């Protein structure tokens, strides 16, 4: 840690590290003294959606052994990092998204249940996370958080491959890729002259006046402007109230550190930092809704840091062709056989399972005011939009739900559906558990029985 004005900061001894908490630095003492004791979060349910690209190899997802009632007894070798959490998982078999799948059609519609229209850039409807954010967001600092890992390679600027959260059918939300920016949004009050109340009032005034001259068709853009200013105002108000509550929360402050600006060069460190921020968001109740894309929808990232893995992720996903000459191969990597490529592909996915296991582990370690763990109160959907990466198979999408949704989910089970079942049924079931009063989602009217 750089030695700068340490005396002015509150130093906390965290997990083996000395940490400065910048939010306490800017908190006016008078406000802190009057702040309420803490947010009423007892039993509040959290929703997270973790997306990974390029699908899986058929046969590497479902449990190896199940008992009566579908009870999960043993996960398969490729899922082994999640073995310690098998009792808090539900693994459905035979779910799919009938209206769109794959890299381009599936990614933007994973959470909407509709089809993607490239021409008009529309995902058909609001995404599940944003529906939840509208209903639950009023109680938290941020209605939702949209996180991604910074893309690499081809398609890293492609809109459909980077968009799973839709505020409206044609409004994909931008995604935060820098850990420090995420931290600042949660824990640093907005500062500076332009965020002063009177300035914000003035620009709102101006935006209002603009409504009179702008076309009917442009009002929505002014709405976006209004919303963005209001979100900022709310953040200013909340940050004043929250400071004291957070300082008193030893468990939170012990583990909280402001990350350095920029993108960590070590990929595992990067992913875990983002996972830590998901935990911090839930723990501090900064938000109850998070989406996290573990890469863009057609990632060509190298995972050569995993022993024995060569080539880019998307190239590996076409594992049945080991020629090294497919369109998305880099032309330098070659494999001896499809079996070898299959192993590398599955290793990459298993590596991601390890990161998810890290997240689940951290959520298990945190106690909630109601006595359970944070994971007990969470519902985490983890999955992809291709049933088999090589075949671009839309059926049986790799999907699992971790967490007990406040003990409303019978966990530790594999669900085997005879008929292809719309992923929207799952979204509907979870939204209802999160407290969203809806009885349809996408084209679904029948929530999955969990």
């Amino acid at each position, binding site marked *: 840690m750089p030695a700068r004005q340490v005396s002015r900061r509150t130093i906390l001894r965290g997990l083996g590290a000395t940490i400065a908490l910048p939010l306490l630095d800017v908190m006016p003492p008078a406000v802190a003294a009057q702040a309420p004791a803490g947010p009423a979060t007892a039993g509040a349910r959290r929703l997270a959606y973790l997306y990974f690209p390029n699908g899986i190899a058929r046969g590497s997802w479902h449990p190896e052994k199940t008992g009566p009632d579908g009870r999960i007894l043993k996960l398969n070798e490729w899922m082994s990092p999640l073995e310690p959490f098998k009792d808090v998982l539900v693994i459905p078999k035979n779910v799919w998204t009938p209206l769109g799948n794959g890299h381009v059609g599936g990614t933007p519609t994973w959470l909407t249940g509709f089809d993607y229209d490239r021409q008009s850039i529309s995902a058909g409807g609001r995404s599940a996370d944003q529906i939840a954010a509208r209903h639950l967001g009023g109680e938290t600092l941020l209605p939702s958080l949209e996180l991604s890992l910074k893309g690499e390679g081809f398609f890293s600027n492609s809109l459909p491959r980077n968009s799973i959260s839709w505020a409206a059918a044609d*409004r994909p939300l931008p995604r935060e890729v820098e850990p420090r920016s995420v931290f600042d949004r949660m824990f640093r009050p907005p500062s500076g002259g*332009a965020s002063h109340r009177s300035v914000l009032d003035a620009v709102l005034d101006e935006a209002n006046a603009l409504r009179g001259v702008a076309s009917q068709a442009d009002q929505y853009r002014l709405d976006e402007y209004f919303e963005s200013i209001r979100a900022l105002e709310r953040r200013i108000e909340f940050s004043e109230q929250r400071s004291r509550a957070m300082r008193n929360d030893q468990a939170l402050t012990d583990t909280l550190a402001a990350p350095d600006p920029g993108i960590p060069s070590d990929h595992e460190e990067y992913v875990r930092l983002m996972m830590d921020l998901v935990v911090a968001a839930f723990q501090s109740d900064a938000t109850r809704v998070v989406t996290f894309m573990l890469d863009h929808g057609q990632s060509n990232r190298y995972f050569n840091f995993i022993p024995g893995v060569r080539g880019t992720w998307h190239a590996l996903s076409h594992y049945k062709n080991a020629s090294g000459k497919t369109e998305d191969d880099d032309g330098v990597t070659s494999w001896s056989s499809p079996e070898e490529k299959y192993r590398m592909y599955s290793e990459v996915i298993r590596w991601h399972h390890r990161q998810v296991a890290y997240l689940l582990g951290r959520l298990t370690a945190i106690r909630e005011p109601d006595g359970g763990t944070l994971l007990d109160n969470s519902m985490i959907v983890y999955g992809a939009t291709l049933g088999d990466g090589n075949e671009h198979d839309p059926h049986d999408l790799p999907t699992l739900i971790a967490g007990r949704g406040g003990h409303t989910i019978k966990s530790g089970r594999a669900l085997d559906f005879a008929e292809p079942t719309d992923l929207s049924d799952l979204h509907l079931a979870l939204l209802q558990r999160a407290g969203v009063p809806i009885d349809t989602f996408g084209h679904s009217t029948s929530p999955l029985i969990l």
Partner: protein
Amino acid sequence: MPHKHRFSTPFLASVLLVSIGVMGASPAHAQGATNQQVVSPDPGMMDERAALGLVRPLVETYCVTCHGEQTQTAGINLAALLDERPLVRNREIWTRVTDAVEVGKMPPATVPQPTPRERQTFAALSHTIENFDYSTIDDPGFERMRRLTHRELDNTLRDLVAADFSVTDRFPTELTGSSGFDNSANTLFFESTLMERYIAAAERVVELMLPNQPTTEAQRRAHAMVFVATPGHGLTDDQAADQVLRRFMERAYRRLPSEDDVDRARGQYRAARQSGQPFAESIKVVLQAVLISPKFLLRVEEARDTPESYAVDDWELASRLSYFLWASMPDAKLRAHAADGTLSESDVLAGQIDRMLADPRADTLGSIFAAQWLGFQHVGTRIWLDPIDNPWCTDTLMTAMRRETSMFFMSLVRDNQPVRRLLDADYTYLNEELATTLYGMEGITGAQMRRVWVTDPNRGGILGHGSILALTSNYKDTSPVKRGHYVLDTILGTPPPPPPPGAGVLSEEVADLKQLSFREKVELHASHPTCRACHRRIDPIGFSLENFDYFGRWRDSYHFRERVDTEAEADEIRTVEDTDVFNEKRYYKNTYTPIAAKGTLPSGTAFDGPAGLKRTLLAERHDDLVRQTVSKMLSYALGRQLEYYDEPAVQEIIAALEADDYRFQTLIRAIVDSYPFRYKKNPAEATH
């Protein structure tokens, strides 16, 4: 002139012959194609209703099971599309449908198949769409309010307060949708995460550019731009503030501030003064507010409450012009013409376009428009080689590669060259590194990019540029398929349909036949019936460019180096020094296979090598090249993707070009004169 899409003749009989040829059906079927029972004998008279009468029962029999209301495979619901009129509204999807049916890709083999005659009937659909009478449409479209792109914001701050740095480098990445340009209104959303960045940027710009004591040249310029009046010399504080703020708002808002705007700003200024801040500091508080105002961050145009189309006013025209040609705000001269209402006068406008194109700010037509159209903005980022293995592939080389194409494009504009020069020119822009590393040219010294005459007929034009050749290659390997597709799609605007699922790669068995050359392998795969229809269009174009390697260096043969076991087989021996295996000898055998760059277009025209390809494209596909150039530039100028109702404008621009040898400045003028650039019409309903 109707849009000639895939089928180059307006006569349906010929259309059907073409489709038969592609299907590989027997000539007997071709006879059937002219049968009166199938289609009207005078297809020119066939209107949409008649065509739908023929096609609707077929769609309902063969398509809607998978592409209907219930199941919308690939997101396509043909039942609904049949009712969306005119059919040109969904031109792209219908073209995909008729293409897929034509080549036998649809319906899939597992379901009942239409008879060959029924397949031919689908051509009635493409025929109707092609011959649609666009003169029945009167709609300039509507340029939606959008925020500035990151690049536009940086440029605008440069021109507004002399900011000499980027404020957007840590903003969330801008994503691009189907128009391919980042200035497309339907991808420029306004979200709270961005608002916080804008606030921080406003603060940073004001603090860094307007310190109390300017020390840098840029800061002095910023002061002069902003503080156009100071208290004293007969001016009270309030009077000076008024002048400063009015001028700043006029520039930042790209139109005269309203009295409300002025009152608001004055109020903020006075509040700051009363809290004890000095004159300049109080002004700076207001400037920060102006820089996060919707009138600064958004491109605002005033609406009129009318169902008719109406012209944009001169202030709006000034902004449309400056963001099109400069990707930045209007300057003082444009604003003066907007203020006195003379900008839309045709001689004034023509003079302003000339002046703007001569200004260095117009370089954005090369560095943004051309770079995003042609894709070379990715050279150096996505297009990149590991510098450890390839020490020659430096950042400066890749910058020079981008600059070559960007400067070349700008020279076509500034020298008012014909559109065909894009593909066939006798000059380019090089510096020493680019000339020696990629092009093997001597005698060019220094890092400065300059115009160089090119005598090699293969090299001139963008298809000989390292940037384009690298971005259409795989990592360290050429891809004739990518290059062919690029020419058809990006340059000619006639993309082949996407490959069927699972057909995207060379099959393993084919690839394992090592004794075949890559070309032979691709030819083998292109001989597969489902692949052939498209690949006979794609592959010959790509193969004719094979003399250019994956970074555009010339080669006469493919070079393979294979490791062999014994010295007897080898023609190259390398000694490898290693800590584990000391001085190990390795044996290699090199093979050189001559490159065959001959090809034939589906039209039958044969050509050889890049020069032959360029000649053939300009002889046979010039219309497509022109249409694509027009469409892309119009789309960029409007900040939206083109819709079917823009077709009359596209046709008028093409006609204007035709009358003046297809010259680039005529293109720009015709775009600025076009109906959608000068007019707008409120959308029928607000869809949000």
